């Protein structure tokens, strides 16, 4: 089985977000980058499938050279080879087109991604890739088992779950508890250094999105503290001041 896992390279979940150049650009200063948390679940499930029934895992990132440590980490976790599409991932449509271009001729049985990136929060790259390749896409997937040429999935829906069956190949946007996050061990880290990381150039795309400006939410006002014996005061504030009851 051939599995493609697409990973984003995103600020650590505890990062404070800032912009520079007149709010036109993300400020990476002091920010630690990680594999997108949902993408990490996708990768972990791919590695589990490889361990249980054998698979070759290619990991792909659309990004500039600074994403390579993140890609190496994915190799250390268990991917066999990596591809970096050498471009700034400006929007979901751009990223998805690069992924589809790469995957088109490679006949992957499974393309796994995260349900969403935690920078762009589009939740759409898997759907666009599915559409461009003419194969099904399912998201958010919380359980994925393969039996021969058929997959059994659970998809999270509002207030519950939906179970599906579908033939390979397809694209899945993954989330927990599909697998346990994996931490690279020493052997993984050593072998990752020599695994192939191929850099390819992007194709041109008119994605129809022009970023204008970024902004931060207005700062939160100060909290009003209420004594525990005065819960009635809280209720009255919620009613009359905040007007949310």
């Amino acid at each position, binding site marked *: 089985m051939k599995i493609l896992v697409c990973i984003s390279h995103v600020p650590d*979940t*505890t990062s404070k*977000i800032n912009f520079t150049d007149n709010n036109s650009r993300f400020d990476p200063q002091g920010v630690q980058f990680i594999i997108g*948390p*949902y993408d990490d679940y996708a990768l972990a499930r791919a590695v589990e499938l490889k361990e249980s029934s054998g698979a070759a895992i290619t990991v792909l990132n659309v990004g500039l050279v600074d994403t390579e440590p993140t890609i190496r980490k994915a190799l250390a976790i268990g991917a066999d080879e990596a591809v970096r599409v050498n471009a700034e991932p400006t929007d*979901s*449509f751009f990223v998805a087109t690069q992924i589809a271009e790469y995957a088109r001729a490679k006949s992957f049985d499974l393309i796994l991604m995260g349900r969403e990136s935690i*920078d762009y*929060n*589009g*939740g*759409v790259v*898997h*759907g*666009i890739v599915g*559409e461009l390749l003419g194969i*099904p*896409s*399912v*998201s*958010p997937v*919380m359980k994925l088992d393969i039996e021969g040429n058929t997959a059994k999935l659970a998809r*999270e*829906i*509002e*207030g*519950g*779950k939906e*179970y*599906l069956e*579908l*033939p390979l190949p397809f694209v899945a946007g993954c*989330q927990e508890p599909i697998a346990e996050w994996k931490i690279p061990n020493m052997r993984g880290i050593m072998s990752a250094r020599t695994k192939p990381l191929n850099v390819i150039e992007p194709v041109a795309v008119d994605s*129809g*999105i*022009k*970023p*204008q*400006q*970024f*902004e*931060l*939410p207005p700062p*939160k*006002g100060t*909290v*009003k*503290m*209420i004594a*525990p*014996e005065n*819960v*009635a005061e*809280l*209720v*009255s504030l*919620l009613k009359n001041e*905040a007007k*949310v*009851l």
Partner: protein
Amino acid sequence: MNILVFVESAEGKIKKNSLEAVAYAYAIGGKVTALALGDVGSEELQNLGKYGASSVLHVSDSKFNQGVIQAYATAIAITMQNESADILVISDSSLGTPIAARVAARVGASLATNVVSLPDTSKGFNVKRSIYTGKAFANVELTKTKKVIGIKKNAAEVKEVGSPVSVTPFQVTVPETDFNARITSSEKATGEVLLPEANIVVSGGRGMKGPEHWGMIEDLAKTLGAATGCSKPVSDMGWRPHHEHVGQTGVKVAPQLYIAIGISGAIQHLAGVNSSKCIVVINKDADAPFFKAADYGIVGDAFDVLPKLHEALKAAK
């Protein structure tokens, strides 16, 4: 300008988020057509006129009773062409967002999801998106003639602006292969207020000590007509189902009121609640980081404060 709105339904009723999508489309201005797929009550469909739809198309084919992503995307794309609609509005949801992606790729549209405000058309067509999981916003211009917009909860206010309209039966032919992803069964909490759509959320963390104490949270939620939520460790430990877990890696909520009980307020949790209008925090530790993100706070033991709060709320009703 023709605008198509895909309206989602559950148990024959139009979802509240979809009414927001209709309101959003109406506010853009133009002719608003709503499209519903599968089994939906006819009165529900007619009433879409009240919120701004000038016509309603209904594909009642039972094949569409289940939300199959690919088949829905095809049906919507066909309808968009048929109605010469330039804009498609969808509400972001576990079904809406994946569909929006496929439709946009199919019809060659500019795509923006997680949109939080009405478009600014004073210069081009600009929308504001929530990014970095609620920690920032991006203003983006959608440059193609066709546009697909996925809106986040509260992007538009649902108001009565018209009267019921008649419903036009509609048919679309979708290739069988679009149903390859077959839904075999589903589990769904019934009769509860759904977390992503709730106006009030009562949420508990590890400070609640164990699942046996959730009755207090549920009682409070019931009195308030609220949904219940929890922090990640609570769902990791199996105290509560996964779909209740709020935060960066869980459900992102945007209620009028979020009440957090025994939750420390880790940044990953805050990322899922920072779009709430008003936040109340109850925690026994005065230094819990959640207080910095709160509007109202009580330093106290949940097991002491909750019953009192419940009584006070009942008394105020």
